[in-house]
């Protein structure tokens, strides 16, 4: 069984004449360890699909199985627990807590898991180290560059050792050089740690790192292709 399986997933916003079909019968399987880029024009439903896969939203119709669990039948709290245990999120706008140190931002998911202070600090430091931010633990987002903020966000997503990393336009707010660095970091997490990566982007430069590219048009999967020559990240320094 695939890790992620969407069966006829439909999402309708609004009702009656004004109803908008954001997703219209999407079937999609993603195996564990995959690196999938979701592309498509604005309004094609790629973000909606991402939110449903990320258990932030539920489909109007259809089935979504994550590790053989019917997510569409779960309560709000059960979905929150699923996110807490298995999913890591990276957003376009970073979404770090303002005026809060990098270390405390990265610790946050562990606090909700109920881990003790010393274990939390050690794990969070290790996560910051793995994104190359050793020495920046006590800086707040305001004192970090965009690229560094996104690295903190990635560390926060990784700190719980999730099986899936969901990245919604992770390079959208960064210049090309910083964007590449972030993509290389994500690609390494996939190749070296085996984390399944699902990334929404509309930059083909960034999608070129993925092994598989799914294109959405008007709420349907228009193309699903394997990338024969994904860009390989340079050999690592420091990734565990």
């Amino acid at each position, binding site marked *: 069984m695939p890790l992620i399986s969407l069966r006829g997933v439909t999402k309708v916003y609004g009702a009656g004449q004004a109803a908008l079909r954001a997703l219209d019968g999407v079937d999609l399987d993603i195996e564990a360890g995959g690196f999938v880029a979701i592309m498509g024009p604005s309004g094609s439903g790629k973000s909606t699909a991402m939110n449903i896969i990320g258990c932030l939203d539920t489909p109007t119709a259809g089935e979504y199985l994550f590790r053989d669990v019917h997510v569409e039948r779960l309560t709000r709290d059960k979905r929150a627990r699923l996110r807490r245990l298995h999913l890591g*999120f990276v957003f376009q706008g970073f*979404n770090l807590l303002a005026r809060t140190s990098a270390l*405390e931002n990265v610790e946050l*998911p562990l*606090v*909700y898991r109920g881990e003790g202070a010393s274990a939390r600090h050690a794990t969070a430091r290790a996560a910051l180290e793995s994104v190359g931010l050793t020495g920046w633990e006590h800086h707040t987002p305001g004192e970090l560059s965009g690229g560094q903020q996104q690295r903190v966000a990635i560390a926060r997503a990784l700190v719980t050792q999730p099986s899936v990393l969901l990245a919604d336009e992770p390079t959208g707010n960064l210049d090309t050089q910083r964007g590449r660095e972030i993509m290389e970091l994500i690609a390494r997490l996939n190749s070296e740690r085996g984390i399944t990566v699902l990334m929404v982007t509309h930059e083909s430069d960034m999608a070129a790192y993925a092994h598989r590219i799914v294109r959405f048009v008007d709420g349907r999967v228009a193309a699903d292709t394997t990338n024969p020559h994904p860009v390989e990240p340079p050999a690592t320094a420091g990734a565990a």
Partner: protein
Amino acid sequence: MLWNSLLLAWRSIRRNLLRSFLTVLGIVIGVSAVITMVTLGQGATRAVQDQIAGLGSNLLQVRPGQRLGAGMGAAGAPAFAEADVQAIATQLGGIRAVAPEVRRGVTVVYAARNWSTSVTGTTNAYFETSNWRLAAGRKFEEHEERAGAAVCVIGATVRRELFGAADPLGLQIRVKDFSCEVIGLLASKGQGAFGMDQDDMILLPLRTVQRRVAGSTRVNTLLVSMKEGSDAESVKANLTQLLRERRHLAEGEDDNFNVLDTRQIAETLSGTTRIMTTLLGAVAAVSLLVGGIGIMNIMLVSVTERTREIGVRLAIGALEREVLLQFLIEAVVLAALGGLVGVALAAIASVVLAQVMGVPFLFNAGINLLALGFSAAIGVIFGYFPARRAAQLDPIEALRHE
């Protein structure tokens, strides 16, 4: 879960120090303003009540001269005489007691100590008209009043200043140029209106003061206390009529004395006090409201940032109730902190201002609890409910919140 929420609440307070400070400040101002105003208002009310009680109830004060007022003294109007007291007591109905009053400032000496005070020459009826009770000793004997004996009843302040803790009964003090035996000690009435010490006085028989201190037989004031339930207006009218006859005033001639009714004064003062208390209450309520609006503003202004924050927390796996608990703790901690600081500040301000204004400081637990509870409620309501609305949003909507 509680521990984690406490940790998160503490971090949130710490990293938003300015917002936390302003919230606390709003509560501090609200709480301390209300408590201080009500405490001072009650102190002032008590001061006025003391003043009324000090005047004695159902009392008519009769003074020579016309209406009290600026430039309208006793000039030209003849004083009263001891015979007037007898006449009123025997000819007027509805009267409980009539006392003459001759008051003079003197210095009294005992051993090496001296003290400036006032002596009041009067009769035993004065104890009734002015609500005095004896703490020790006795009143005047009839023969002492008749003969103008050198005996005195002293107030608590005079006793303290001259004798300290020693028993003064039977001892001789020097009043002006004569020796006087202390036969009684007045029970303390305490501080009167506007800080006046009512216990700073000495009572002597009327004739003693007339002969040895004042040097005249004039009586400055008559105190007439009416029976409970007697008609003040008719007593006053009869009294006026009697005095007009005794002072040989012709028909159409103005009174050359005036009668002051303490019940009228009491009613006027009570009315003033009521208005003052209401006014203070209203001002206090406004300041509490302003404090509440301050808190509300700060909380609502930060709701955009907080909504996104809640979105992040939900996305990374926080449960709705965990987020709510954190925000509730945050609001409760800030409100409690503000409330306690407010109570402390109010206590200091009330004590200091009561001193300055010369009113008694009366601690009122009720208003402290009320103000604390109300401000805490405002803090919690405006801190918690916007957060609850945000926590019930979809994480995606909360994250998109602009």
